[in-house]
Structure formats: structure tokens, C-alpha cells
């Protein structure tokens, strides 16, 4: 036994570590999922139950009756997809320009973009609200997508620049010498090679936009543009004085996180490569 322990000591510690880690990470999810399938009267019991006596799905339809859930879902999809596609497209263009088409001041532009990450999003709200009031951009998908894609753009440009730097420049030069225009080179040679970076950033930006609270909270006050994050807050606020809708909120939480969990499961490798590229470079 002692020999076994000595031999496998590191391995056992590691596996114990994994188990503790998994429990800490997953415990809240277990709580949320279990709450969502527990009848309301059993959620609020002292002492609490760690596994409900009866399972039920009634919280889900009840939640959908309380708020226009599918409208919020659609809004979230439009908001997240719109912001993702816009930001990745613009950032890929800008990333290529900054990495390859050196011009006087290009480093300054890049530095400015990166430094602008440091400005807290909430601290720029007042002037944006003024602009949005003047242009009537409140409660429009367009207005929300503009803000959100701008928010994720600097990081995306950063990733794109570091990716383009890794692509050998020779192929592009050969194409240019062959007489192709810059635009042809970009479309036929650069874009295909940038595909992995583009895919990665599509996933990451989708997750970030899907999770966004502040912009929709401030600029989408009507149900026809509210996203799920804001909807979850409204569901809680609406009943703040007179009820504790944890049964409904847990059901809504579960359905809200399904898309991002699916993305994490299938895009894990891409996400990790994207997140770490920024830090390591």
C-alpha cells in the first residue's frame, strides 16, 4: 500500500485536485438546474433539499408566461450574431491592414486601439446616451450592435494582428508580383488563411455579446429589443417587492446558458487558442 502510494502519489493528488475543482466549478450549475426542475413550494423549504422529492418541468412554461421569453431569445440572437459578425469582419480587415500595410502612424493606431480597452465601458455611458437620444438609436438593434461590436473590436483586432504576423508574407508578395491587386490578394489568399482566427473570434465574441448586460440594460428598455440578460433582471425586478421568482429565474437561466455551453463543448480548443493568444503575445 505504501509503495503504491509512493508510486502514485502525484497522480492521486492530481486526480483529487480534479475532483475538488470539478465540484467547485459545477456546484452552482447543479443548484441552478435542480432548482429549475423543483416545484416552487419545495424550493423554499428549511432546511433546503439537495435533491427534490418530485421533479417537474412546470417552471419552464410558467416562466414563459411571465415574460416574452422567445422574443428575448430572438433579440439576444440578433444582438449577439449581429455584433459578432460585424466586429469580426471589421477587425479582420483592420488586423490585416495593421499587420501588413505598414503606413506612417500604424503603430500609433494599434496602440490607441489597445489602450482604449482600458477605458471602463460604464464610464463612457453619458455621452453615448446623449448621442443615442439625439439619433433615436435607443431600442434599435442597429444601435445596440454598433455599441457591442465596438466594445469587442480592440481585442479582436489584437488577435487578428498577431495571427496575420504568423502567416508567411511570401505568398502575398508572390501574388502581388504576379500582378494581383491588394484586394485580390486579400480576398483570395489572406482571407482563407485567416479562417482559424476568424472562427475563433466568432465563437468568443458571440459568447461575450450573448452575456452582455450593460448596453442592452441602458439602451433597450422595451420588450421588443431586450436581451435575455436584461430579461432575467426584469423577471427578478418585476417581482422584487412581492415575490421571489427563483423557480422562474432558474428555468430562464438554464435556457439562457444552453447556447454558450454548446459553444464551449464544441469550440473549446478554438476558444482557448483565442484567449491565450492575447495574453502570451
Amino acid at each position, binding site marked *: 500500500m505504501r509503495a503504491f502510494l509512493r508510486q502514485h502519489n502525484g497522480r492521486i493528488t492530481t486526480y483529487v485536485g480534479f475532483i475538488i475543482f470539478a465540484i467547485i*466549478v459545477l456546484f452552482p450549475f447543479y443548484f441552478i438546474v435542480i432548482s429549475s426542475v423543483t416545484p416552487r413550494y419545495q424550493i*423554499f423549504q428549511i432546511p433546503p433539499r439537495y435533491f427534490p422529492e418530485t421533479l417537474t418541468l412546470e417552471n419552464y412554461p410558467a416562466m414563459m408566461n411571465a415574460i416574452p421569453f422567445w422574443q428575448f431569445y430572438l433579440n439576444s440572437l440578433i444582438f449577439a450574431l449581429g455584433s459578432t459578425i460585424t466586429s469580426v469582419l471589421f477587425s479582420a480587415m483592420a488586423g490585416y491592414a495593421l499587420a501588413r500595410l505598414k503606413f506612417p502612424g500604424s503603430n500609433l*493606431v494599434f496602440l490607441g486601439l489597445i489602450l482604449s480597452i482600458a477605458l471602463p465601458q460604464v464610464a463612457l455611458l453619458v455621452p453615448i446616451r446623449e448621442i443615442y437620444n439625439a439619433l433615436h438609436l435607443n431600442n434599435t438593434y442597429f444601435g445596440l450592435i454598433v455599441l457591442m461590436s465596438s466594445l469587442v473590436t480592440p481585442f479582436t483586432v489584437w488577435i487578428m494582428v498577431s495571427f496575420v504576423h504568423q502567416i508567411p508574407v511570401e505568398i502575398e508578395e508572390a501574388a502581388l508580383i504576379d500582378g494581383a491587386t491588394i484586394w485580390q490578394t486579400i480576398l483570395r489568399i489572406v482571407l482563407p488563411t485567416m479562417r482559424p482566427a476568424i472562427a475563433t473570434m466568432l465563437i468568443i465574441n458571440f459568447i461575450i455579446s450573448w452575456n452582455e448586460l450593460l448596453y442592452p440594460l441602458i439602451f433597450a428598455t422595451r420588450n421588443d429589443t431586450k436581451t435575455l440578460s436584461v430579461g432575467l433582471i426584469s423577471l427578478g425586478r418585476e417581482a422584487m417587492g412581492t415575490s421571489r421568482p*427563483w423557480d422562474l429565474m432558474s428555468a430562464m437561466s438554464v435556457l439562457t446558458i444552453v447556447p454558450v455551453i454548446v459553444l464551449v*463543448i464544441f469550440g473549446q480548443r478554438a476558444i482557448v487558442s483565442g484567449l491565450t493568444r492575447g495574453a502570451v503575445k
Partner: protein
Amino acid sequence: MVANVSPPQAVTRARSPQLTLNQRRYLAAALLLAPVILLRLFTTLYPFLQTIVLSFHEYNPAFTPRTYVGLENFEKIAADIVVKSSIEFTLIFVFGSTFFQLFFGVMVASLLNSRLRIPNFIRTINLIPWAIPMVVAAVGWRWMFDGNYGWIVDLLRRIGLQINWLTDPASARVAILIVAIWKSTPFVAVSILAGLQGVPEELYEAAKVDGANAWQSFWGITLPLIMPLMVTIGMFMLVWQLAVFDLPYTMTAGGPGFATSVLAYQVQQKVVTLNYGYASAISVIMFLIVGLIGALGLAAFRRVQVSM
């Protein structure tokens, strides 16, 4: 390639034969950069400058027309106990959570870097806290901390600990930190992991030959090598968490009282009550804190690089 040139491009070239390659290159760069630059000018640079201007104004669209008041808003902040307490907790929150995220991040990263075959699902679940909306995390944890029905409260009660998580000011602050650490440690861990994987295996082998144990080789080899990376990530987390508003907003609404209120939350509150001038002044305080963090980061970088 040449044979493939389609008519529109031929026209373009015919129209601009006088442009040199460099000029064409600048034109292309300008066109490619234009959308991003416009977006950032419109949503960041202009708002940034305008916020600074507004911070010297008294401005509430419901009550007071915009009037220049000099430093009055900042004098108000100096006397505003709620904002001052928010500055205090903002600093505690930002530095405290970043410290623990780095600490646990190194642990988790070392775990994930183990030479054992790691079940793929461990890597996947590691990303899940990062990937879910903060709103969902905050709401879920808020109910786990609930004084009557919360699981955490019940589990602690079973081992004889009675903590009033959300009613006691100090405990509520700890609760907020716990959620922030839980939510962002995985992101930090993933970033550190990339650094760990870059440490050459030979260094460990050599240390082993010299008789170093795992702890010694971590302390002597790994940590110094990943230190610059840690500083970068730490800087990023400090700045990023300064902007965290959704966590206290959703979990405690800054309460009990204003114990868990942060500056980002205060700005949002002033914005929705239309106190635009005051909100801008608090925003300027946030800019100053960003500057402070930046200066600290630069100093840390210099030290790390000197020691290497």
C-alpha cells in the same frame, strides 16, 4: 492570376495609374481601417473626451440645464460617503479578486498542465464559468447565499458556522469576491496554462537531476519564467474588473446599505437618475484609477524584467 483579372479591377487600375504602390497601399489601409476607426471614434474617443468635459458641468436633463460649475462635482464626491465607500470597495474588489484569481489560476493551470492524460471534459468545464452570463452566475449565487433557503448557508450551518452572507456588510463583500473569483479564475488559468506549456521540459529534467522536488522546481523555474505573463494577465484583470458592474448590480444591488457598491454601479445609478454631470465626474475618477493601475503595471513590468 494575371489571366484572372476581372474587368472591374482592370478599370480601377486604369483609373489610377499615377498612384505608386505605396500610395495604393495607404489607400487600402485607410479603407480597411475605416470601419474600426469610425466605430471607436464614435463610441469611445468622443465619449471619453465628452465625459471629461461634462464632469465640469452640472447637468440633469429633467431639472438643470447644462451649466459649467468647475470642480463642484468633484467637491461633491469628496463629501459623498456613498461614492467614497464605493471607491474603497472598488479597490478592494479589483485588487482582491485579481490576487486570488492569479493565485487559484496558477493552481488550476498546474493541474491542467499535469503530464497525466487529462479527461477532456475537465478542460471543457473549466471554461464554463467564464462562458456563462455574469447575470446568471450572480443570480444563482445570490440564492445559494440566501439566509433562509440557501445551500451554502445550510451546509455551513451543518458544520456549526452561522454566517449572514448578504445581511452583514463584511460578509456580503466576501460573497461578491467569491463569485468574482469563481467566475474568472478559469479564464486566468487558461491564460497561465499557455505560459506553463511554454516552459521547456529540459529545465525540469535538469532540476530533477539536481534533486529538486516539485515545489522547488515550481518556485525556482516555473514562477520566474511565467512572471511577465502573470503581470500582463494581472493588469488585464485589474482593468477589466474595474468595469464590472453586473455582479453587484444583480447580486446585492450594492447592499446591504452601500457596502458592496462599486464605482461602476454608482455611475450606472447616476445615469439612470439622469445626473449626467455627476455621473461623468465619477467616470473621471474611474479613468484616474485606470491610470493608477497602468502606472503600477509598468512599474511591475520593470521589476520583473530587471529580476530576470
